[in-house]
């Protein structure tokens, strides 16, 4: 691996202000024999945000996390945590990182508090004083002296979070952290993550295959499939970036409107649906105005024109399934790009 610059990486924030990166990887690759688990991943996680790492099972999420934590070595590429290049400054970087990798595991013969003492001992002389506070934070203060073998999976998850907090981390890396939590626990967990980000300024990197969880907790996300990051950015932009932009259009004459829409270069697909027309645009949502003008010129009275809200789930399924059928997905992306170009030309693609 080539060393990464030791300057803290900076990214432009939403307002154009420079924003440090908590995680940065470039062309990171990991192979297991013939199989490439992580394939040239470029990842940029802004500091002070909750960042989702989304992907189906086996997409490479856990392998990525294991490389970031030094649990397994990368074959090529560079990575940095909190501005510190890995593996050169691994110890200093990980001293500020708390992590849960897969299912939290503990010594079952020890109590929750004793298990935290084991990690505190490895983290340094000063960390032991944080054990009580960490147990209290996750609601296990009253059961900290109970042996872990008697803990439920949900309690182990909480203890895993407490173990992360021992580092007083600037960055938390959580791999499927809500597994085993009941609905109330999941709700509390979400609130806790948001509090860590908004009130304490920590960065949370959350790997999950649960779209709803990521959409509710995270500010931004990356979608990974078959070892490749196929999309990343703020959640709203990711969802809005779905290549299939759709409108619901209510008109006075459906047959006339249908003919006009089918002839339009701005339209990828159109179908009648519950008294209105559902139109898939071949360009971005700004094409809606041009399309409206086309309909009016064709003599159609437009009574309603409403964008269909895109969800992260739609985007996820589109991207992932697009990779699974590369010819279809690729054609779709090309068509979307062409449509965008036509819109930028003033909708004069006809």
């Amino acid at each position, binding site marked *: 691996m080539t060393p990464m610059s030791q300057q803290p990486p900076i990214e432009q924030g939403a307002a154009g202000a420079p924003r440090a990166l908590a995680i940065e990887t470039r062309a990171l690759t990991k192979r297991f024999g013939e199989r490439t688990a992580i394939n040239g991943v470029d990842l940029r996680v802004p500091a002070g945000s909750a960042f989702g790492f989304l992907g189906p099972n086996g997409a490479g999420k856990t392998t990525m996390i294991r490389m970031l934590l030094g649990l397994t070595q990368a074959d090529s590429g560079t990575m940095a945590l909190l501005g510190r290049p890995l593996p050169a400054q691994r110890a200093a970087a990980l001293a500020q990182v708390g992590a849960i990798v897969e299912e939290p595991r503990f010594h079952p013969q020890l109590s929750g508090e004793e298990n935290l003492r084991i990690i505190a001992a490895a983290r340094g002389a*000063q960390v032991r004083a944080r054990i009580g506070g960490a147990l209290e*934070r996750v*609601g296990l203060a009253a059961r900290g002296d109970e042996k872990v073998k008697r803990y439920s999976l949900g309690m182990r998850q909480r203890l895993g979070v407490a173990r992360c907090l021992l580092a007083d981390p600037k960055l938390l890396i959580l791999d499927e952290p809500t597994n085993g939590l009941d609905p109330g626990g999941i709700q*509390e967990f979400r*609130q806790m993550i948001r509090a860590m980000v908004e009130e304490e300024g920590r960065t949370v990197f959350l790997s999950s295959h649960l779209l709803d969880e990521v959409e509710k907790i995270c500010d931004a996300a990356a979608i990974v499939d078959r070892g490749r990051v196929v999309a990343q950015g703020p959640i709203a932009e990711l969802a809005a970036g779905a290549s299939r932009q759709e409108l619901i259009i209510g008109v006075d004459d459906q047959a006339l409107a249908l003919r006009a829409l089918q002839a339009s270069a701005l339209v990828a697909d159109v179908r009648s649906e519950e008294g209105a027309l559902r139109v898939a645009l071949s360009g971005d949502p700004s094409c809606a105005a041009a399309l409206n003008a086309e309909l009016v010129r064709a003599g159609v009275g437009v009574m309603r024109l409403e964008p269909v809200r895109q969800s992260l789930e739609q985007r996820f399924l589109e991207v992932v399934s697009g990779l699974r059928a590369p010819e279809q997905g690729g054609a779709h992306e090309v068509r979307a790009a062409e449509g965008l170009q036509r819109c930028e030309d003033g909708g004069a693609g006809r």
Partner: protein
Amino acid sequence: MSTEPSAVQATDQQARRSAGRGGAPGRPSYVAVAAQMVGADVLKLRKKLGIMIWSSVLALGPLVIFFIVRAAQHASNAAKYPPAGGMSGFHDSIRLLALFFGPLAAILIGVEAGAGDVAAGVFRDLVATGRSRLALFASRVPAALLIALLITTISYALLAICTYALASGSATPDATLMLNGYGFSVLATLVVATVAVGFGALSASRPAALTVLIGWQLVASPILAAVSSLGSARKPLLSEAIANFSPIAVGGAHGGSVAMSEGTALAVLALWLVVFTALGAWRTRTMDA
């Protein structure tokens, strides 16, 4: 779960004060960290009840049975059977402890120390703290030695008590011999425990490490030692090198049948210790966690 940040942050000031005790504030003493890590490994071992019970049973049980049977035999026919204690009892019992069951107990303890974190699945969490993998391995060795030393000392105390209490007026070992016997028992146990830590870490599997080490120590070594045609090729056997330091004659199936100088015996012990600690450290450093 609490969304209040104060619980952890409130303890940070206290944490920094604690850090200051080990050295300069914000620069925790390496000695303090090492002591904490060894303490943590001791905690893991002593709370592993199965290991503690079975290693105690292995170290103490045979001695108890030995002295009870010998005492019963002597009581039933004093002319035919010597006293359970005295010099005769000391010789036999020290062979039991130092060359047979003590090392077995040490294997249990050492393998648990070497492979316990991987088996429990917490090795990855320890690595993720950023602490050097070599430091994680290094802290296991003294922890295993402390537990093995404790069990050997308790067993030897029982041996000494029985040697004197059941002597029935026969000759007893003097203080020097008793001390030498203790030193020999400790040496045997600690060398085997260290090798077991290294081998446990190397194999990263408790069942595999236990099977191989016990098989080697109880079956392969005695058989190889008994094959006189192998001549000096038997000198590298660990049990033979250990037996060379015995304060009493211990020739027989469980070591002491191969003549070698003290220098050679020391070199053999050093070789075993260096090779297996190095292999254990290498594996801990390079394995996927």
